[in-house]
């Protein structure tokens, strides 16, 4: 926390941005709706949300890689219409050029500045030293571990001395230990004022990461992406994960994120309850992860009721993995989620106790009762004399309610669940749903 409130100047001003993409058939798909936020000097801003909430799209708009449909982004008083000098980005996959050495990769950021070769070299070496890569200058990315690669990604972004650093889930592809080391190293440099940057925007789906690093956190909702809430983190650095205030904040954010209407259908039909219409986008979950979570919650020490942050860390799941599974369980009435807790229903507890055959029967019953799409597919197959229907029959129908990619994912999920429940089968070769029992 730097300085008093008065002399804070705004680096970046985002006003009422909307972004929509054109679908192949010409209609528009809204992915970001009315986003407004201001980034002040000395702040780390977190954009927190699950996959598909448009946070990465927003980051690309800020980086000048794509234009917003409406609204404006102003950086240091000028509107962003192209990648501006002074905004650099760290990518999730580190996005290094495999044919360039560490040094050359870091220099790449400077090439466009047309500096003399010596200056180029000096600055690159300095950035490499700062980020703890000395000795690796001549290595190729393939020779480095994931953590080292991401350090090169940081060095490449810092070498241009940007005012704003954009980070797109920079730690999510790393293992837990490496990610933690990188985070604390970054925070140390940041709080010691060693970094040339004035502001950071971090996209993440990891709640603890956001609380650990950010000064302000914007919670994003999906379909279309929008800001649901802004949370100020006033804990002093370095923050300790086990500090009760830290835990409270994490818990609070979990509650915020689970109290929102889950699985909101996209498009025309507005369903009040999740899973009651075929327009519901189903997340990518498998029957294994569903029964896995059910069993974990049913077993001790939880005995049917668990705190989401607690079970998330014990299962090593982040919210983009945990929430879809938990919400699908809720949709199937095997569990209830409220106030950051997951609680098994009677049927959920039964499921955990049953053997495979009875589990499947119970699963089939709930799938047909509570997931409209499953019931719909089964009904269509029952009605047709040959009990067969092509993929496109349902894909076309779903695309009325959701973008094609979501329709694809929804159908894949319902096929996986339907196969497990043995309520229908699917022949991928012929792309046909049928009732043949293998």
């Amino acid at each position, binding site marked *: 926390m730097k300085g008093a409130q008065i002399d804070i100047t705004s680096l970046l001003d985002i006003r009422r941005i909307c972004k929509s993409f054109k679908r192949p*058939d010409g209609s528009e798909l809204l992915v970001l709706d009315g986003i407004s936020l201001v980034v002040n000097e000395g702040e780390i801003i977190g954009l927190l949300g699950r996959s598909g909430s448009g946070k990465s799209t927003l980051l690309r708009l800020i*980086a000048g890689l794509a234009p917003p449909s409406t609204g404006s982004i102003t950086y240091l008083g000028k509107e962003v219409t192209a990648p501006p*000098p002074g905004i650099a*980005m760290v*990518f999730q996959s580190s996005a290094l*050029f495999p*044919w360039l050495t560490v040094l050359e990769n870091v220099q*790449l950021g400077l*090439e*466009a500045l047309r500096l003399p070769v010596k200056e180029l070299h000096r600055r690159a070496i300095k950035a490499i030293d700062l980020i703890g890569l000395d000795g690796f200058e001549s290595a190729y990315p393939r020779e480095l571990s994931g953590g080292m690669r991401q350090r090169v990604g940081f060095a490449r972004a810092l070498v241009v001395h940007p005012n704003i650093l954009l980070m797109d889930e920079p730690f999510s592809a790393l293992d837990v230990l490496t990610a933690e080391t990188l985070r604390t190293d970054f925070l140390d440099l940041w709080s010691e004022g060693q970094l040339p940057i004035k502001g950071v925007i971090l996209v993440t789906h990891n709640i603890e990461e956001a609380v650990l690093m950010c000064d302000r956190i914007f919670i994003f909702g999906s379909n279309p992406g929008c800001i649901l809430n802004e949370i100020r983190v006033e804990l002093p650095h370095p923050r300790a994960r086990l500090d009760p205030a830290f835990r409270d904040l994490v818990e609070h954010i979990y509650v915020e994120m689970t109290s929102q209407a889950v699985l909101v259908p996209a498009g025309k039909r507005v369903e009040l309850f999740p899973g009651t219409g075929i327009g519901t986008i189903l997340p990518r979950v498998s029957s294994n992860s569903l029964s896995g979570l059910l069993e974990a919650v049913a077993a001790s020490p939880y005995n049917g009721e668990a705190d989401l942050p607690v079970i998330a860390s014990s299962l090593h799941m982040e919210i983009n993995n945990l929430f879809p599974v938990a919400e699908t369980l809720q949709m199937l009435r095997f569990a209830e989620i409220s106030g950051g807790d997951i609680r098994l229903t009677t049927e959920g507890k039964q499921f955990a106790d049953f053997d495979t055959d009875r589990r499947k029967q119970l699963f089939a019953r709930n799938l047909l009762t509570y997931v409209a799409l499953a019931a719909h597919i089964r009904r269509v197959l029952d009605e047709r004399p040959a009990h067969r229907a092509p993929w496109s029959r349902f894909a076309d129908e779903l695309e009325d309610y959701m973008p094609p990619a979501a329709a694809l994912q929804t159908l894949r999920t319902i096929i996986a669940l339907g196969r497990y429940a043995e309520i229908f089968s699917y022949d991928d070769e012929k792309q046909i749903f049928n009732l043949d029992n293998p």
Partner: protein
Amino acid sequence: MNKQHGLAAKLSHRFSALFWDLVAILLVLGLIVFLAQASRGLMQPLTAPGETAISLDASALPEYALRTSLRMLAAMILSLLFTFTYATWAAKSQRAGQILIPLLDILQSVPILGFISVTVVFFMSFAPGKILGAELAAIFAIFTSQAWNMAFSFYQSLRTVPVELAEASRSFRLTPWMRFWKLEVPFAMPALVWNMMVSMSAGWFFVVASEAISVGSTTVTLPGIGSYIALAIDQRDLDAVGRAIAVMLIVILIYDQLLFRPLVAWVDHFHFEQHADRVPPRSWVLTALRRSRWVAIIFAPLARIWRWTYQISGGVTYKERFHQNETGASIASWLDWLWYGGIAMVCTFLSWKIKIFVLQGVALDEVGTAILLGCSTMVRVFVLIAIASIIWVPVGIWIGLRPGAARIVQPIVQFMAAFPANLLFPLAVSGIVALQLNPDIWLSPLMILGTQWYILFNVIAGASTIPGELRDIGTNLGVRGWLWWRRIALPAVFPFYMTGAVTASGGSWNASIVAEIASWGNTTLKAHGLGAYIAEATADGDFHRIVLGIAVMSAFVVVINRLFWRPLYTLAERKYRLG
């Protein structure tokens, strides 16, 4: 309502692909007709270039070999220039890509071998009486056998540059020129070098065929291995044929060691997928070059100049902006109209040209004959591919599963694929003449002589990628004999086999033009087929029949590709690709 809208979009998309294919066919056909007509007009004053006597003396061979390989090199450079410009244009401009890509697809299927005569005449008209025209024609012929697949691979690479790398280079504000050399070219390199090697094999075949060409009464000979062997055939000199083959082997070996091995070793670090545990290819030439201080001294200024071009490209203050504003949109729509109008006009002109050409000299029953002959060549190609598959698939799998054997055999097969099979034709033809065999049957194997190696080569590559676990589980479950082939080996190599078979089939069609008709001294053997038809028309200087023959053959290749190979290929990729 929405659904119908989507359906209409899908339909119109499918229709538009067909539409652009048709435009491309029209353009290619029109171009050939245009060339043929231009050449015919120039035919009369054509004089044989300053006579170059070819000597069958062994001491002349090194010089001939050098000239032949220089021609190859010139064509390769030309192909690279074409690749970098044409493919880049097609990838960067949506408008241009719409027509350039189908055009490339059709050009790939045209048997240019049948058209060498026409291009020879065309180029010689630029420099009448001089050897330069013939040289240009030969280089052009080689170029046409190399450029298309290289351009295609480069285009595909440009379209599949990883999104994050593209975003990174944009967010670091690299200029398009820098992006091209720092990101796009390196990313495309591995595929491009692979295609250069395939192209080179095709090129050797063409260089041999294009050095000694007779059109009507005019014969053009360029000093080179091809004309050497043509003379040897004429004089029934088996020793000379043997010498030429031996020299060719050496030339290809040198090319391999000095050019392609170093290239393959060099492009290895451009591979985007990185497996740390893979043994990288090595080349003693590259290692020597890398360690040499002289090379470093020579290259340092070049590198400086290169860096300077980056700076210059930035100097033209490059501003990337979003095209959004009203004026931009109206200009774009204007350009659209201009572009489509231009295409429509060119197409109308060409169809008019083709119509006149066809009406002038092509009888309907002639078309029937050509199609019938095409069918007979088609039967040959399919039977040969089938026979080659039956032989080489099991052999390839056997070799591929034994890493030791594969290491030895793979370079040999690669080498065999590069060797111009037409150099071996005289040996076979002299045998057929001596034994008085039926040319309709026995000339056919020549068509696949050079192209069968693609099948073997790809199957070996496929078999060596079968995961060890898959083989272990087969052993574990006691899967043996025919079941093992049916359930494990054949499905695993199927996608690779398809790649090989498609290449072999295309190459065989092309080879039919030189393989279906062959001579040994003054004896000429002829098989009934479209290749022989084109070759005969060339010898007669009958441009109408040449164009007809080429058009029919292109149609056969395109239709077979679309209706037979492509669906099979898609199936192979979808169902059987491992991992």
